[in-house]
Each structure stands twice: as C-alpha cells, then as structure tokens.
C-alpha cells in the first residue's frame, strides 16, 4: 500500500532558504540544494519549495536553483509561490518540478486550475489553501493569509478539485505557528469532501503530532512542516521510525 508521506517545506528568497537552521555536517544551511539533499538523505518523501521572492530577478534566481536541486535530488519536487499563469507552470516544470502548487493565483484567476490540469495533467496541479475560521465558518484567505476572500473554504476546495487539482495542501491559519498539533477538525472536513490526496499543514510541534494526525485521520495522506524540521526539533528519520512503531505505513 501507499505510504504516508512526510514533506519538509523550504521557503526560498533570492536563492536562499529563509529560516536559519543548524545541522551538523551541513556547511551551508541556507542553500536549497544542500538542505534539500540533506532532507532527501534523511528520508523525506517529497520536497516543497516555496518561492517567496517578489521580483522578476528573484524568479530567475529561483528557477536556476530549482534546476540545480532537480539535478541532484531524485524525489518528487513541488514548487509554489508566484504561480499565476500557464507560463509560470511551464517555467518551473521545465526546471524539474513534478507538481506545481497554486494559491492566490487560483483565487484571482478561476481558469488557471482547469487550464493547467488540461495541459499538464491533474497529478501536476496542487491547490494550496490557507484557511481560517471566521465566526465559525471556514474562510479562504489570500496573499499569504493576510486577506479574507470571503469564500467558504470547503466548497472552494471542492470546486478546485472538480476543476482538476490533483492534490490539496490544507494550511490552517488557526493552528499555524502554534505548534499544538495539526487542525484535525478542519482536515477531517476537507478529507471528507474530496477524493484526492490531502496534505496537512500548519501546527506540527513534535513527532507525536504526526502520529495523532495519521491515527485520527487515516484519510490524510501526508504531513507537511517547515520550522520543526529546519530547527532540528524533529528529525525525519526518527519521526518515520516512530510512525512505523505506531503501525503507520511509511518508507524507511
């Protein structure tokens, strides 16, 4: 059977990984290539690279880095950040990305997901949704979680999947950064609404949070996190061992 996936997420700005880390044996902790390789060697099942550069110049640096990553790391790579057009899909896919994650771009342009799915296949298109409870209703937020779009989140995600998104990254703004565990309630609502892989994001504070995630919600396919991996609080190899001890199917 398919294993549960553990996915570290790397934010890249001007070609460097943002959020400093300190791993033994890693000479340049802010090099996307070195850090990506480190994670891949530790057993990460996939890597997500988020381009948080705003300038056109930064975009070029990002794609150069991506090429370097894809020529040294041989696990699936997902790329997000600044994906607004089919040309953006083309730009990152040519550099070795396997999946492309869209967020604000899909909110601004409803035709983006169907057009990309038609051209590159559903498996290539990931909808990444930043969701927060507002007066008891799940709402989609845009612009890195700063702007309430007013859209109800479950129906929005369902629509994206019907339009061709082959995977959902659900980032709960409510639990993000709190380190108190994933947003199980929100994740359950989304996993019951769609029949494509759902990736949990936001809230992981320790290895046990991943065990709770997969035990409570067997429908969730993957757990994504950034800082707990970057700061070495959770080591991927140890995490996978713990999951295995808890009878969760992982790739060791």
């Amino acid at each position, binding site marked *: *059977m*398919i*294993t549960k*996936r553990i996915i570290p997420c790397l934010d890249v700005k001007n070609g460097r990984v943002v959020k400093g880390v300190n791993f033994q044996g890693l000479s340049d902790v802010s090099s996307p290539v070195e850090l990506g390789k480190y994670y*891949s060697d530790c057993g990460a*099942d996939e890597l997500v690279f988020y381009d948080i550069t705003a300038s056109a110049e930064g975009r070029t640096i990002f794609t150069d880095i991506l*090429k370097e990553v*894809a*020529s*040294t790391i*041989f*696990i*699936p790579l997902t790329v997000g950040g600044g994906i607004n057009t089919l040309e953006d899909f083309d730009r990152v*896919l*040519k*550099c*070795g990305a*396997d999946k492309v994650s869209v967020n604000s771009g899909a909110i601004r342009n409803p035709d983006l997901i169907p057009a990309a799915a038609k051209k590159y*296949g*559903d*498996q290539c298109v990931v909808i990444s949704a930043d969701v927060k409870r507002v007066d008891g209703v799940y709402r989609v937020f845009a612009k890195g979680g700063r702007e309430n779009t007013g859209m109800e989140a479950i129906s929005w995600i369902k629509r994206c999947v019907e339009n061709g998104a*082959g*995977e959902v990254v659900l980032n709960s703004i409510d639990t993000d950064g709190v380190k108190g565990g994933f947003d199980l309630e929100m994740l359950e609502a989304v996993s019951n609404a769609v*029949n*494509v*892989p759902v990736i949990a994001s936001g809230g992981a504070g320790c290895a046990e949070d991943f065990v709770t995630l997969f035990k409570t919600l067997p429908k969730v*396919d993957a757990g994504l996190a950034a800082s707990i991996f970057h700061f070495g609080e959770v080591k991927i190899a140890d995490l996978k061992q713990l999951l295995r001890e808890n009878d969760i199917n992982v*790739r060791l």
Partner: protein
Amino acid sequence: MIGIIDYGVGNLFSLKSSFQAIGAEVFVSGDPQELEKADRLILPGVGAFGDAATKLRETGLDTFVKKQAAAGKPLMGICLGMQLLFERGFEYGEHEGLGLLKGKVVPMEGVLPKELKIPHIGWNALQLQQPDCPIFQYIKPGDHVYFVHSFYASGCGESLAATAEYGAVLTAAVAKGNIFGCQFHPEKSGSVGLNILKGFCEV
C-alpha cells in the same frame, strides 16, 4: 551510452539528470540516426496513451524502437513509456501500442475498491516476481518506489517482473529478454530508483 528517446512527450530533465548522477553517459534525442549510436535506449512518457502512441508513429520512432528492440538492444520504458511496450491501451478509446510485450493497458477504475484514490500516487513497495532480473540486482524486495498513474498493464504473463499492492495487484515492472519497463518513476524514487537505473546500465 544511454539514449533517451524524445518524441515530444513530457519533461526529460530529471531523467537525464538521474543517469548523470550515476555516472552514465546520456543524451536526449528524437533523431533515429543519433539514437542508433546509443547502446541502451530509454522510452519515457507522461500523458495519455493514444496521444503518445500517435506521436511515436508520426515521428517514425515506433519503427525505429521496434527494430532496435528486435536487434537486441536493451530498452527500458518508463511510466507511459512502459505502457507503450504492450499491444493495446484502453485510455480514451482503444489504441495500438508497440506490441513488444504481450498484454494490454487498462484503467484502475472499477478494479480498485471504491475508497482508494485514483491516480495511484505515492511511494509503494515492490514485490519482485523476477528477483533475478538484472534491473533489480542492486535493490531488495519491499523497497519503495514512486508511482503516478491511473492505468496499468494487465495480462503481462511471463514478462511480469514486479508488482505493487494497491487494493489490487498492479504491474510495477516488466522484463523479457532485452526489454524492460517500469510503471513507477525510477528518476523520482531516490536511491532505490537510481539503483534500478544502474542495474539497467549493466544489462
């Protein structure tokens, strides 16, 4: 030297890089004269069976691949490239494949239990049906590889080399003489994938 056959289907960057990573000499070409110089061939592919089969025919590369295979040159199909090795594909209609291997490519839909998601995407374990197959010489049973597909090869008979369990037993790899195929993506399967490519380089 490895020749990756470029017939306009999919992105070959990672595939080429993965051979470079294991120290193999590799080039990408759509020109039969160039490809003939390779001592091993890779038939890649993503997308739909019918489109890819048409492109192979339009470029004349279908005849080239069949001739090279008949002459005994090691050939490995990857993902849709593996599916094209078979006689027929049933994705959006019925299409003719290269017919180098016996069997047909059919949808998972209707075969898998309803609760399982299609495509079959992610890391799954290999059960080796031909443990002595040279492409497996550097891996072990139960090693995980990365899959992305909604159709699978059925009725492969003696060419079945490895399977993966996903609610049904799915064809993961095939091998017969000098012809090999992987349904999964060795170029995205970490060190296990690279070791399979290394095995192919030594066939």
